[in-house]
Every structure is written in structure tokens, then in C-alpha cells.
């Protein structure tokens, strides 16, 4: 009984997604070259074709309804893909470095046991982040949260808070800059 229900659901989902994809797929095909060029500009290199394929698979699996601005959606998804990819490359590199540092340490030393150290690290990090964020003008932090956590557009925030577009932009710059500096500080800590 349970199996029968599940099978029905799966086939419904598949049919549903195909219907919505046809329009988007056409726009994807039309933008194939600009998208490839975009991925390469982000440093995709020889993987650009593969990444484009991965991008489409992701989009096809995600999209379940009509999209307001399909071209923007495709480039946005490509941007996120490249940010994820370059981040995991950077992380892998960092792990290699950490690992070689760790391997040099003497066995049995307290520094070799990662768990209490890491836990302390987590608390220290959060406290540091909290202290640094408190230095920001509250308006800038509020704009950042609305924009990046709640997903409001810059125009919506400007309208709601009665501010100009350039004020929103300069507040966001302030927060991004601080986050980058803070991230570098955490690496050194």
C-alpha cells in the first residue's frame, strides 16, 4: 500500500517538472554561449562545459514553477555554483595546510586533540563576530540582514526605510568589507 502511494507520487513529480522546464530549457539553450563565457570568466577553465551541465541538472531539479526573470535566474544560479565551487576549492586548500601543520605536532600533545580546541574555537569565533558586528552602525547591519538573510531587494529596503539606493549600497559595502576583514582575522586567530 505504502509502495503504491510512493510510486504515484514520484511519477506525478516527474511529469510536473517536465512541463515547467520546457520554457526554461529554451532560454537556457539560447544563453548557452554567454553562460559558458560567464563560467570561464569566473575561472571555470576546462570544466566549464561540465559545470554548465551540472548547472542545468540543478536547475531542472530545483525549479517547480514559472520563473519571473529566467535569464537572471540562470546567471544567478551560475554565480552561486561558481561561488560554491571556488569556496570548496579554497577550503580544500586550507585543510591541506592545516593537516600538514597538524601532522608536524607531537603525538599525545594536547594540541593534537582537536575536539576541545575546536569547541573553544567556536565559542571564541562567535564572540569575536558578535563584538565586531556591534561596531557596525545598526542601520547597516539591519539593511544587511534584510537583504542577505530575509532576501529583500535593495529597492524594497530603500523604499521601506525611506533611504536612497546609494545609501543602501554604501551601507552594504561597509558590512561586506567588515565581514571580509573579520574572516581574515578568524583565520589568523
Amino acid at each position: 500500500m505504502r509502495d503504491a502511494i510512493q510510486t504515484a507520487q514520484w511519477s506525478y513529480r516527474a511529469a510536473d517538472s517536465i512541463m515547467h522546464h520546457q520554457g526554461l530549457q529554451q532560454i537556457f539553450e539560447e544563453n548557452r554561449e554567454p553562460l559558458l563565457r560567464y563560467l570561464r570568466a569566473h575561472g571555470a577553465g576546462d570544466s566549464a562545459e561540465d559545470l554548465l551541465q551540472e548547472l542545468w541538472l540543478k536547475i531542472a531539479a530545483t525549479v517547480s514553477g514559472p520563473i519571473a526573470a529566467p535569464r537572471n535566474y540562470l546567471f544567478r544560479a551560475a554565480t552561486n555554483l561558481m561561488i560554491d565551487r571556488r569556496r570548496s576549492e579554497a577550503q580544500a586548500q586550507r585543510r591541506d595546510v592545516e593537516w600538514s601543520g597538524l601532522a608536524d605536532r607531537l603525538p599525545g600533545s594536547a594540541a593534537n586533540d582537536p575536539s576541545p580546541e575546536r569547541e573553544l574555537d567556536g565559542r571564541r569565533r562567535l564572540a569575536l563576530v558578535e563584538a565586531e558586528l556591534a561596531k557596525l552602525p545598526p542601520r547597516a547591519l539591519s539593511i544587511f540582514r534584510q537583504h542577505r538573510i530575509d532576501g529583500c531587494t535593495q529597492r524594497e529596503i530603500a523604499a521601506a526605510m525611506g533611504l536612497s539606493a546609494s545609501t543602501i549600497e554604501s551601507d552594504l559595502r561597509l558590512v561586506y568589507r567588515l565581514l571580509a576583514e573579520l574572516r581574515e582575522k578568524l583565520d589568523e586567530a
Partner: protein
Amino acid sequence: MTHDSDRREAALDWLVRTNDPEFAGWAEFTAWLEESAANADAYHALAGYEAEMLPLVEAVPAAAEPTRQPQRRRLALVAGVVAFAAAATAIVAPRMMPVDYSTGPGEVRIVSLGGQDQLVMNGDTKLELAGWDRRTVQLGQGQVLLRLREPGQDKIELITGDLKLVDVGTVFEVSRDGPETRLLVSEGAVIADPAGAGLKVAAGQRLDTQDGATVLQAMPADISSVGSFERGQLSYLDEPLGHVIADLRRSTGIDFSPSAAISTRRFTGTLSVAEVKRDPRSLEPLLGISMERSGQGWRLGGKV
């Protein structure tokens, strides 16, 4: 040196612009990136840092923002109005409305529930936070991990299908697929159906049920897997393949559909989300199944 800092300023401008959901200048942005590989490096340094810091910003107990402090709500409200009049009207008022959160397949999102309380959403998950303090979670579909560590907070209520769960200071994970609900408790305890059965599911136990079930029974569970989706690892001990495949769909964004015959088979082991994403076919030997391309996804069947 000056050149590098100019580049960083330009990258900062582009990050501000491209992060806006309404940004449409992709050709212009491509041209800037193409000017030099160092431009892309500068942009990605900033974008990567921001992406890494975002969960921390979300996790910071909003001492800096009185409007996000539900525990001392009424007091905070007064202080908030004085100190941050503009922000308070903009944010406090909508707090009372339910808010929808959703993630696409393969996306993991952390939602702060105030203080140190966190809700982590796995991919392909839809939920609504309701109630005055937004401490009622209506889980439509998908998988969530709740880390409730803030002392003195109101209880969290999670409702999915016809099942209600109430936390007793805890870390637990809930998955919802179709009419089925899975609960795994790794710390503290959860009360299931508080008004009826009032079943206490303690740390180290799980509850598997579906809408319309008349009996609720807790079972021992392997809790090392609780929240493992957040680390990109999926661990199972004798888990029905139907659940495993639903988890894989959520975490990879790949449309895996199992045949009815294999859904009830069981799997024990650990899967790496990144590896499955890179090579979906690697599941064949791992799960002991056969795979076939079907549209944009994969159809999973029994081995011949």
C-alpha cells in the same frame, strides 16, 4: 599595492550589485571578470568570505538587534522603540505574521530561532514559522535539524501532517516525505502528540510514523546521523532505501526516483553528498541497485 586595493574596491562594488536579486547586468559583469583573472579572484575572495560569515551573522544572538530577542520580548520592544525606532517598526510588526522558508534541492540554510536556538534546513524543504515568537514550526516537506540550547526559552512546537512534537531542551531532526514523518532525537527529549499519546522520545531514540497512524512507538536509533546532512555526510543504520533516496534528492538536488520494489530494502553505511553529486552512478555498487537515466534524473531499480 594600490592596484590591488583598487581591484578589491571594484570587487566590493560588484558584490554589492550582483547580490541584489534584481541585478541584471550580467554582460557587463562578465566583461569585468574577463579583464583579468585577478578580478575574479578578488570577487570570489569577498563572496566566499561573505558566504562563510553569513551563518555566523545569523547565529549571533541578536543583542545588537533588540527586535530579534524573543525571550524578553516586551521589555526589548520598549527598548527597541527608543533606540531603533525606524528599524523596530519595520521589523517588529511583521514578526507576528507567519514566515515561509524554503530551500532548493542541495541547499542548506540556517534559521535563527532567537538566542542560541537554531533550525537547520536541508535541501528541498518547506516550512513556516508561526506564532508570536515564531516558535511554531509547520514543516510541509523535507528535513530539519533543531538545536535548542538557549536556556529559559519557550518550547518549540513542530507540526507536520497530523503529528505535533514539543521539545524538552534538545537536539533533534525531523524529516517529512509525503505522509511519512521520521524523528531522531540526539539530545534531551521530544514529546510526540502532547495532547493525545504524549509519547516521550528520548535521546538515542527515533519515531517513524505516518499521517493517520493510531499508535506511536519509539525505537532505539543510531543518532550519529542526526544533522549529518549539514556536514555533507549521510549515515544510516538499517534504513529503508526509500528514506535514503529521499535524503539524497534533498542533499544533491538530483532527481533520483526509486522503484517501489527497492524502497523497502535496507541500507547501512555512510554516503558522501559531494561524491554522489560528482558521480551519481557510484550509488549502484554502494546501494546494490541499478540506475537508468530518466529525463534530467535517474530511475533506481533492483539489480537484475
